[in-house]
Structures are given as structure tokens and as C-alpha cells.
């Protein structure tokens, strides 16, 4: 009787050496270490690349912070007549 087995399972298309390396990588976490090293070198490279093109210089004048910088002259001009009227109408508090 001939066995009615038409096909048989093939061995995976990897060599014994590759399987050994795969097994070793899975065990050792070598991929994670490699990824971390790439990240570290990548980050270290950023300032090196930037240092070539950006220069920061300190201002030669002192920085002045004006308290009422948000009040604009045009608004003051617009309100001026109204304000004068308010003062005239309420002399007891001015």
C-alpha cells in the first residue's frame, strides 16, 4: 500500500545559522539594545547639526517691560472726550 501522502512539510527557508542567531536575539534583547543605541546617537547628532546654522546673540540693549503695553494710544484718543465728560459729571470722586 502506498501511503496517500502527496506533499510533505518543508523545512523553513532559513539556515541553521540564521535560526541560531534569531534565537539568540530573542533571548538576549539585542534588538532593544540596538534601538536604544540608534536613538541615543540620533539625539546626539541633532545639536551637532544645528550648531552649524543657528547663532544666538545677546541683545545689546536692556530689556524694558512696559506695564501698560496693552493700552494703545489710539484707544486713549478715542476715549479721551468721554473720560473728560465723566470727570466733569462726577466731581465728588475726582
Amino acid at each position, binding site marked *: 500500500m502506498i501511503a496517500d501522502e502527496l506533499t510533505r512539510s518543508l523545512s523553513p527557508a532559513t539556515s541553521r545559522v540564521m535560526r541560531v542567531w534569531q534565537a539568540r536575539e530573542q533571548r538576549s534583547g539585542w534588538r532593544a539594545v540596538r534601538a536604544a543605541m540608534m536613538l541615543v546617537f540620533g539625539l546626539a547628532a541633532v545639536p551637532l547639526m544645528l550648531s552649524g546654522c543657528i547663532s544666538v546673540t545677546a541683545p545689546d540693549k536692556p530689556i524694558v517691560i512696559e506695564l501698560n503695553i496693552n*493700552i494703545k494710544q489710539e484707544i*486713549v484718543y*478715542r476715549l479721551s472726550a468721554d*473720560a473728560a465728560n465723566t*470727570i466733569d459729571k462726577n*466731581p*465728588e470722586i475726582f
Partner: protein
Amino acid sequence: MRAFADYNPRKLMFAAAAVLTLAVAGTALAQRDPAYAAARAAGQVGEKMDGYLGYVTPPGGDIRALVEDLNIKRRALYSEKAQAAGATVEEYAFTTGCRLIAQTSPGEKYEGPGGGWLTRTSAPPQRDSRCP
């Protein structure tokens, strides 16, 4: 009842004068509190750039209460008027402050553009560059 035209014009004028006198007297009553006026004249209290009163010298309890009361009333008025004018309270108060500094009398104190207290002389006061 008589029609308005039947009244003696002289009597009408007299009545008008009486009403006017009362109005003037009413305005006079609404003038500055004497203690506040004295504190201003003495340079204890000055007009600040922001539209409120400030203490030039450390105030006594009565002056402090007086000034705080006036500043609260000013703030209420500024916020009402600012809303009507479509501006912020700070903008309206600052604009009023410009006017109030301009209206100070010689001898009174006001806050100069640099932030320190200055004494008003007969010359125009030193004001913020944004003041009209």
C-alpha cells in the same frame, strides 16, 4: 389751570433763576470731601497714571479709608463707562488718569511716566507718551 403762555414772563425768569441757583448749590455740595481736598493740597495723596489715587506718604487711617472709598467709586464708574464705550476698564481708567494728571493744581502730586511721584508746577505735567 392757566396755559403756560399766560404766565408773567418776569415771574418765569425769576423761577428759572431760582432753579439755576439751586442747581449750582447742588453742584457745590457734590464737591470734594474737605479732608480729601486737604490731603491732596498737602501732597499726601496723588493722582496715579492708572486713573486711581495713590499715597505719597504713608497714610493715616482716616486718609486711607477716604482714598480707598474714592478708588472703589472710581473703579465702579470706570467699569460702567468702559462697557458703554466698548473698552476695557484699564483703558478707560488710564485715559481718565491722563486727564486727571493734566487737571492737577500746582503743588499737588502726580505719578510721572517713570513711576515716581512728581509735584505739579505751573508748567504742564510730565505724562505718558500715549496721553492725548
